[in-house]
């Protein structure tokens, strides 16, 4: 009781303190410094209509590389923590007929939609991470509906590594051509797609990088799901 009261009082003090700190910030007023530059130059500098993905992939591509690394480390960490010589699915109940049929019908559509999200990262909201998460959801559906389902491990783990290496390779080609890491060579040097901004074949290397990230995130999260749904078999 006293513990809970103390916790509530502490939280109230912290909340009041944060509210005091934020009270000085004017709400709804224009306070863009760097943001204005992004908004004004995003089209001719990156070819992307979606300013968020342009910032995430082009202007601050290094952060995205870091995020991809974080996800990779998370996946590897889960794999290392839950490592057993022999592992098996622990599910005992098969889903009902409605569920299995529905899942097998839905699966291609969910994957298709995930691919749509990450391919159109430079045009619509989304990008590699939501698209990849959607694809992983499709595999989670399969895992939930079928007792014996397993992702093809050999293919998935290799694809994951290759996609990650592809991202770095695109960055390194930029280093070779333009002089710095993650330089958008397709847009800046080749000028490819500069006449059709706002269509699918534009946006420099954003769609390419997002396709790689989407594949990587999708396979990675599926791998985490696979690791977590299995238990070691002692024999």
């Amino acid at each position, binding site marked *: 009781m006293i513990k809970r009261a103390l916790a509530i009082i502490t939280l109230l003090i912290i909340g009041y303190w944060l509210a005091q700190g934020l009270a000085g910030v004017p709400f709804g007023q224009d306070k863009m410094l760097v943001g204005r530059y992004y908004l004004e130059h995003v089209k001719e500098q990156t070819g992307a209509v979606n300013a968020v993905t342009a910032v995430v992939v082009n202007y601050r591509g290094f952060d995205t590389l870091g995020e991809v690394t974080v996800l990779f480390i998370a996946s590897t960490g889960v794999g290392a923590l839950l490592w057993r010589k022999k592992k098996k699915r622990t599910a005992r109940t*098969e889903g009902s007929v409605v*569920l299995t049929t*529905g899942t097998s019908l*839905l699966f291609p559509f969910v994957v298709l939609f995930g691919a749509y999200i990450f391919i159109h990262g430079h045009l619509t909201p989304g990008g590699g991470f939501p698209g990849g998460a959607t694809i992983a959801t499709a595999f989670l559906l399969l895992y939930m509906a079928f007792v014996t389902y397993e992702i093809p491990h050999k293919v998935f783990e290799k694809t994951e590594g290759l996609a990650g290496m592809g991202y770095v390779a695109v960055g390194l080609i930029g280093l070779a051509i333009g002089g710095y890491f993650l330089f958008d060579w397709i847009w800046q040097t080749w000028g490819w797609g500069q006449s059709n901004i706002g269509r699918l074949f534009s946006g420099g290397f954003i769609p390419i990088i997002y396709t790689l990230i989407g594949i990587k995130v999708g396979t990675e999260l599926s791998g985490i799901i696979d690791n977590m749904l299995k238990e070691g078999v002692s024999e």
Partner: protein
Amino acid sequence: MNALAIIGEILVLIGTFFYFLSALGLIRMPDVYNRMQTSTKSATLGSLGVMIGVGLWALGSSFGSVAWLTKTIVIAVFLLLTNPISAHALIRAAYKSGIPLWHGSVVDKYHEYIASKTGAENAEETAEEVSE
């Protein structure tokens, strides 16, 4: 403002009414199964009305393009196909985990079916195997 926009507005109104009924059913109904029944059905229908209505409304408005209607139809079809499956899975899981029916219920054929397959004593444990 033309006919399409008016039809769209009416559809959205009907949809929100069904949303309201669905929320009301969540409060009013006595047990899990009845609540699922009311909420999933009327929420699905309400969503369909709202989404198709928004598509038609946008088509009838001055900024309208067919893209809105196309997108809303895609979302509506997806929801129409997935919502019953999720409701089915939820209800089945509720039954399997032993949530009782409302005390006023009269028949429970599923329980009888499981019992006839396995013998009445261990009907709960073996409920999973027979249900395929």
